[in-house]
């Protein structure tokens, strides 16, 4: 095993939300992080159990160039010798080049692993690795979803807010709004929440209801192959070997047995609920919450709960 | 410049088109070669055996630059029955020396190379552009093409259609009478990767020498034939199948190729190979009987577009005919332009050139062969008949004395249910055709 060089994760924060790969970057930096952006305290809370030592900078101007300069200043003031790892999320990729320039360091983008003397970069769309020797401090971006997060039992955390003022300049590119995920139009592959339906649901109409329930939970609808074979849903809704490979945080399965061809495409949801009459099928075994009940009736009841009955 | 964009437009940068453009450019004509693929050859089947003799005229010492896989020094014809085979095999080292007889080549390489020859001679090659129709003058004479690009009309006094099999340009110009599916075969081919040394060991060749084998039988009861030839590090194996039979027997070409690969005479040649590519293509096969009119006012047809392809089971030649006919078309067009008569009459020199050369001579000679080779009798009965005769000739059955050949033939003919009259008639046709 290789010892990792001294690292600090620089994680851009929007409204207190950590970006994709944020916690992984903090794990890669063994708990040391600089959070920069808006509402950092909330983000610090969500990093508890992963981060040990956190610096924060509330930034008023979120443009990458400014953020990069502020972050560089924060590094200089906190851990100037540490190399920097930034999650390769959209915001992280925006930030990293500016940070590298401001620090005068090389940028290694798309790393999958940072080792003692080497950064391993994914190339050719993940078909090859470019191992890059490193000398001296650098900035790297870390591909999300590859490393995994190390949670530790000890959730104590040392938090040091820094205050760094940035020059205020006018911008030609201005953020107008951030739209929340739209589950109904999103690619299933991208969906953070999925409600799935399988052969345990007994008719075409159930899937219309399933889609409604999904929508009211801000989730997308997925199905098993049995359902697409029956023509009750289109192929782009099918999760699995011969369908779409998804990676939601939340998966709710109604009447799905959890055949390996289905679950192979399921990624690693943080939370799974399964409703099934058979308490022993693989889907129930994978679930955090396994409810033994008729999925059709539960669906009706759920529809009732989430969408209050209209008077008509 | 005249009111035209060019002196001539050639449609399709296959072997026919590139040779036509090359001939025109050599004659000092301003020619535009239009190809729908991103480069010449990109739409073509992966490999082939080409007989580029005709190139001697156009590209002297072509063998020094042409991208060739192997020089064919050995040609065999295999007759396959159920689980046995009879092979006629010819080889000569002289085909492995300049000026060479035939070569195997990857068509994307070969066609690309040929198109570069035309460009080097001054032709303008326009790729990723599909010709969608003909332009005509008020008198109905062809005087240009329409393409799928914006602002895509190109005008020229002469259009040469080299757009391959099923040429819609030739059809649009009314040069074909009705064509029916019976005239087409479908070719499917697998390119199988093997290490170079393994290929050379199995096929008994060295260096850059190669083998071309044609196969009769082994097509799971669907009328057609097969072929195997060696490239540098791949072997191409394919079948050519009669379309109507294929449909009637509801067999998939993949199944038939798989069956051929399992045949005990074929399996050891390709064992352990990985499939690198699979492709399928329609081939005009009926020879002379389906050829279109070759010229009309302002337009010529060459190559597969003119059905100048010989797919008679033991031959599968098209590239040589395409190159030759393309070249003749180019020359005839140049002459017509010089003489200022681009009407059908002015272009008639093309037909004459074809008649005088091997292009039509071969086709005329072999006119009955496609029908014969693909007939039910030749396909279904003869392979078994031939191989059982041979089997009995070679079988050592001591202490029984060997039966005479005449008796064997008679007995096996009866067993195979072949009428003597048919056998004689087919034999005569074959003699006349091949002889």
């Amino acid at each position, binding site marked *: 095993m290789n010892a990792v060089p001294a690292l600090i994760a620089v994680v851009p924060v929007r409204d207190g*939300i950590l*970006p*994709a790969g944020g916690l992984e970057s903090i794990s890669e930096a063994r708990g040391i992080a600089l959070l920069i952006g808006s509402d950092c305290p909330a983000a610090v809370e969500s990093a508890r159990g992963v981060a040990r030592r956190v610096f924060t900078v509330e930034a008023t101007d979120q443009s990458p*160039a400014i953020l*990069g300069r502020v972050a560089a200043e924060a590094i200089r003031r906190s851990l100037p010798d540490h190399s920097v790892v930034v999650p390769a*999320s959209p*915001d992280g*990729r*925006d930030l*990293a*080049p*500016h940070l590298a*320039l401001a620090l005068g360091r*090389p*940028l290694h*983008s*798309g790393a*999958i692993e940072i080792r003692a003397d080497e950064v391993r970069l994914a*190339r*050719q*769309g993940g*078909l*090859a*690795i470019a191992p890059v020797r490193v000398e001296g401090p650098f900035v790297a971006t870390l591909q999300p979803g590859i490393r*995994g997060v190390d949670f530790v039992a000890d959730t104590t955390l040392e938090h040091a807010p820094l205050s760094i003022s940035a020059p205020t300049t006018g911008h*030609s*590119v*201005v*953020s*107008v709004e*951030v*739209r929340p*995920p*739209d*589950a109904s139009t999103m690619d299933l592959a991208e*969906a953070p929440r999925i409600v799935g339906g399988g052969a345990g649901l007994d008719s075409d109409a159930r899937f219309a209801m399933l889609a409604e329930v999904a929508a009211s*939970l*801000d989730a997308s609808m997925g199905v098993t192959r049995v359902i697409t074979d029956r023509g009750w849903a289109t192929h782009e809704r099918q999760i699995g070997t011969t369908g779409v490979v998804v990676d939601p945080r*939340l998966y*709710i399965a109604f009447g799905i047995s959890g055949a390996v061809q289905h679950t192979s495409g399921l990624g690693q949801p*943080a*939370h799974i*609920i399964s*409703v099934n009459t058979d*308490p022993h099928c693989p889907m129930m*075994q*994978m679930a*955090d919450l*396994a409810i*033994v*009940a008729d999925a059709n009736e*539960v669906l009706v*009841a759920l529809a009732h*709960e989430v969408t209050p009955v209209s008077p008509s | 410049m005249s009111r035209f964009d060019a002196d001539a437009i050639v449609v399709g940068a296959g072997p026919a088109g590139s040779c036509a453009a090359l001939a025109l450019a050599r004659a000092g004509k301003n020619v535009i070669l239009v190809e729908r693929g991103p480069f010449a050859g990109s739409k073509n089947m992966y490999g082939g055996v080409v007989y580029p003799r005709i190139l001697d005229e156009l590209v002297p010492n072509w063998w020094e630059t042409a991208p060739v896989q192997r020089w064919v020094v050995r040609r065999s014809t295999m007759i396959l029955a159920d689980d046995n085979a009879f092979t006629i095999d010819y080889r000569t080292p002289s085909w492995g020396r300049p000026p060479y007889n035939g070569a195997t080549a990857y068509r994307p390489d070969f066609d690309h190379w040929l198109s570069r020859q035309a460009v080097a001679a001054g032709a*303008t090659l326009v790729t990723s552009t599909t010709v969608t129709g003909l332009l005509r003058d008020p008198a109905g004479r062809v005087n240009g093409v329409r393409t*799928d*690009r914006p*602002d*895509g*009309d190109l005008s020229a006094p002469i259009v040469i259609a080299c757009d391959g099999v099923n040429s819609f340009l030739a059809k649009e110009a009314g040069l074909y009478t009705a064509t029916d599916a019976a005239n087409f075969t479908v070719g499917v081919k697998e390119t199988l990767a093997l290490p170079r040394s393994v290929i050379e060991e199995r096929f008994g060749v060295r260096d850059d020498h190669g083998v071309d084998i044609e196969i009769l039988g082994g097509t799971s009861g669907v009328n057609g034939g097969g072929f195997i030839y060696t490239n540098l590090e791949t072997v191409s194996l394919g079948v050519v199948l009669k379309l109507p039979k294929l449909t009637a027997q509801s067999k998939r070409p993949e199944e038939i190729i798989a069956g051929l690969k399992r045949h005990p005479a074929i399996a050891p040649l390709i064992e352990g190979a990985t499939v690198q590519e699979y492709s399928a293509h329609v081939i005009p096969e009926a020879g002379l009987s389906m050829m279109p009119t070759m010229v009309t006012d302002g337009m010529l047809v060459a190559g597969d577009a003119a059905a100048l392809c010989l797919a008679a089971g033991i031959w599968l030649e098209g590239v040589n005919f395409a190159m030759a006919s393309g070249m003749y078309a180019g020359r005839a067009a140049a002459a017509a332009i010089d003489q200022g008569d681009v009407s059908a009459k002015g272009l008639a020199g093309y037909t004459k050139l074809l008649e005088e050369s091997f292009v039509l001579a071969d086709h005329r000679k072999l006119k009955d062969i496609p029908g014969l080779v693909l007939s039910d009798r030749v396909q279904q009965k003869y392979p078994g008949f031939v191989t059982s005769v041979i089997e009995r000739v070679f079988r050592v059955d001591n202490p029984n004395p060997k039966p005479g050949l005449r008796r064997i033939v008679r007995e096996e003919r009866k067993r195979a249910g072949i009428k003597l009259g048919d056998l004689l008639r087919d034999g005569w046709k074959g003699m006349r055709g091949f002889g």
Partner: protein
Amino acid sequence: MIAVCLKWVQPHGAADDRFAGISAADQSALELALRTAEARGDEVLAVTVGPVGAERALRDALACGATRAVRIATEPGVSSLRTATALAAEVDAADVVWCGDYSADRGSGSVPAFLAARLGIDQALGLIDIEINGNGSHIRAVRRLDGGRREVLSVTGRAVLSVEGSTARLRRAPLRSVITADAASITVRPLESPDISAADLVPYRPRARVLPAPASANALDRVRALTDTGAAPSRTETVVLEPAAAARRILDALRDWGYLT
């Protein structure tokens, strides 16, 4: 002036450049550059850092309507920062610089941001939806954020914009332009030698991710944990419920886990 940066990509393992070309993202960028220029009545400069073969991409761009083309000559192996620095020198007069989001080979996606930094102008990267107003003075762009969120940006001045491949479909070049572009002149500028080694790629070996092992000291408990049989502790909580109670239980769990408030 509007600029577009195009990267010539040679597919991995291909011996010649017949199969090379520019990525779908670069094609989108070119199209959008042409549209912006049309709206503004402006010119389009197409730039590439690449080998001779890359001139084919520039010719295609000219055929599609670009006004001028520059190739910064180089061999493979130029870092993102040097690429961006070289590009910046060419496009420093541009009002809007369009780029593809990622290149198909190296795929670091850092050139556009470096370019913005070098030019000292704003950036809007990873765009998936573009609207250009009538006179080209205002661009409304949608950008992909993580977790399915989208950011809407308004671009009103000089900026570097990078787009995904699906944002716009490159127009077909008119036939005559194709023919003339074949002979058009391309400015070639030299760039010193490559500064990173492009060759040392090793096959991808995904990073190890450890699964939790069954913890108990008792072998039977470990079997139970691995097979999910019996009463062994596992992450699963199994409950038998009437439908209405089940529905409420689901919503409670979603609240506990923070999906609902």
